[in-house]
């Protein structure tokens, strides 16, 4: 809806779509050729940068080859994704429910809210050393960190969302004789949904980023581990493949979430 408004504006340059597409294509190709040139000409040593062609070749080889880090690309993806998705779903789900309850029931709120104010500014990454000390290098430590990373933003946003429920609507509910629970479910939660989804999206970013961090520091598999090994072996091609896959999967998960949001939030402006 907004894009049509923008097009109506007098000030904005309005270029035909085809021109814009050509500009994008040109820019992309220019980027690739500069990159390729930097490596081929030796301006950037092949020990620190791989050319786009090498990156593509490595990505294809890595689909089935376990060298040099002991697992194929699909295995690394599987390892990271299972952990990220399960950790995220559990943490963000619990977080959203807790946040909603906190915002609605005042007594819970007063006790729990300050705790979140204390924990919120501590980045999830900085929990890594402590959790390695507690759980060692492995699944448990990563699960703990991801849970923490996804939990906090989910709680905070659901909480803020339900706090903003229009009091008029609540009063209408009361006047019509609905119980507090019924108002919570039929008015509070639907009203808070856009903010809940904002929280879910932030949680997803946070969980994915933190997982990569945890895998860089302490893991024996996963995409973060793969790029870390790429560095140890001086293989920039593997690092770049890993980074692109990390970015792609992150974008893919956000996309799925956005689709879900549109589905549940039909007819509502976020």
């Amino acid at each position, binding site marked *: 809806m907004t894009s049509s408004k923008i097009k109506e504006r007098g000030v904005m*340059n309005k270029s035909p779509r085809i021109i814009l597409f050509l500009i994008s294509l040109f820019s992309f190709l220019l980027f690739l050729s500069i990159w390729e040139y930097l490596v081929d000409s030796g301006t950037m040593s092949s020990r620190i940068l791989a050319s786009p062609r090498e990156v593509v070749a490595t990505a294809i080889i890595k689909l089935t080859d376990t060298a040099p880090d002991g697992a194929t690309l699909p295995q690394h993806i599987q390892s990271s994704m299972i952990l990220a998705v399960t950790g995220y779903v559990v943490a963000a789900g619990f977080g959203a429910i807790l946040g909603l309850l906190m915002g609605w029931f005042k007594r819970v709120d007063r006790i729990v809210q300050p705790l979140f104010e204390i924990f919120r500014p501590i980045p999830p990454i900085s929990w890594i050393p402590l959790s390695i000390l507690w759980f060692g290098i492995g699944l448990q430590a990563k699960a703990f960190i991801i849970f923490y990373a996804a939990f906090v933003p989910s709680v905070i946003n659901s909480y803020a969302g339900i706090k903003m429920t229009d009091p008029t609507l609540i009063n209408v509910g009361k006047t019509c004789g609905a119980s507090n629970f019924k108002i919570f479910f039929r008015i509070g939660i639907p009203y808070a949904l856009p903010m809940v989804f904002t929280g879910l999206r932030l949680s997803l970013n946070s969980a994915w980023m933190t997982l990569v961090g945890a895998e860089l520091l302490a893991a024996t598999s996963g995409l973060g581990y793969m790029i870390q090994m790429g560095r140890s072996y001086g293989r920039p091609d593997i690092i770049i493949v890993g980074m692109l896959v*990390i970015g792609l999967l992150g974008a893919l998960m956000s996309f799925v979430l956005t689709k879900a949001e549109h589905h549940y939030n039909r007819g509502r402006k976020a």
Partner: protein
Amino acid sequence: MKNLFYKHESFFYTLFTIITLIVVWQIASMTTSMTKVFPAPQAVVEKLYEMSTGTFAKYSLFEHIAISLERVLIAFLAAVVLGIPLGLFMGWSDKVDAFVKPIFEIVRPIPPIAWIPLAILWFGVGETPKIALCFLASFIPAVVNSYTGIKYVNPLLLDVALTLGAKPRSVFLEVAVPSALPAIFAGLQNGISVGWMTVVAAEMFGATSGVGFIILKGQDLSNPTIIVSGMIVIGLLGALISIIIRLLERVICPWKREI
């Protein structure tokens, strides 16, 4: 007194919770054997005092803090100076947008932390990779928010300015940019907190100073007291940074109420 309480009700509840938390924490650490894995508050305070008066790995606590802050601030300023204009131009001109988009959209979803191995490969383990990572982390939200900020400027304002005979240039500078400022500030807020998080992460790889280094050193020494002390410092500084940005926002764009 009663009035004072109601005025700052939430503050008192927060204070109450913090005190309760510390008391429970202290009692638990005196009566149980949890101090093996989680230090007592007393131990943390002593450690913090010891680190700030003496030295920890060649620097005092304040020097570690200053080093981390310096890295974040240099990177953040660079991100502001380069990121905001880029975002504004992208939002204003669809040609600039079309040119930058393809590359930007590839880079954007890659978490800054995932750049760590490449940054180390390129720049070694000195100051440069940390500042570069931090720059990237703050740069992306600065661009994205300036971009959306200017894209969603109320068209009415632009039309009014045009009708009154303003030139596109002054519409951009005097109408569009000021009304995009709140969104830009949201981006800066976001950018500096991601930047802070990234500097902590970057300092956990091959650094010899900074707050991220403190907690990693604590891990190497298997010393939870050092780790928790470091985490508290990181959290406090993170909170402080975002308070400062919020104050700055109130000074620079007082017309913003709510987003």
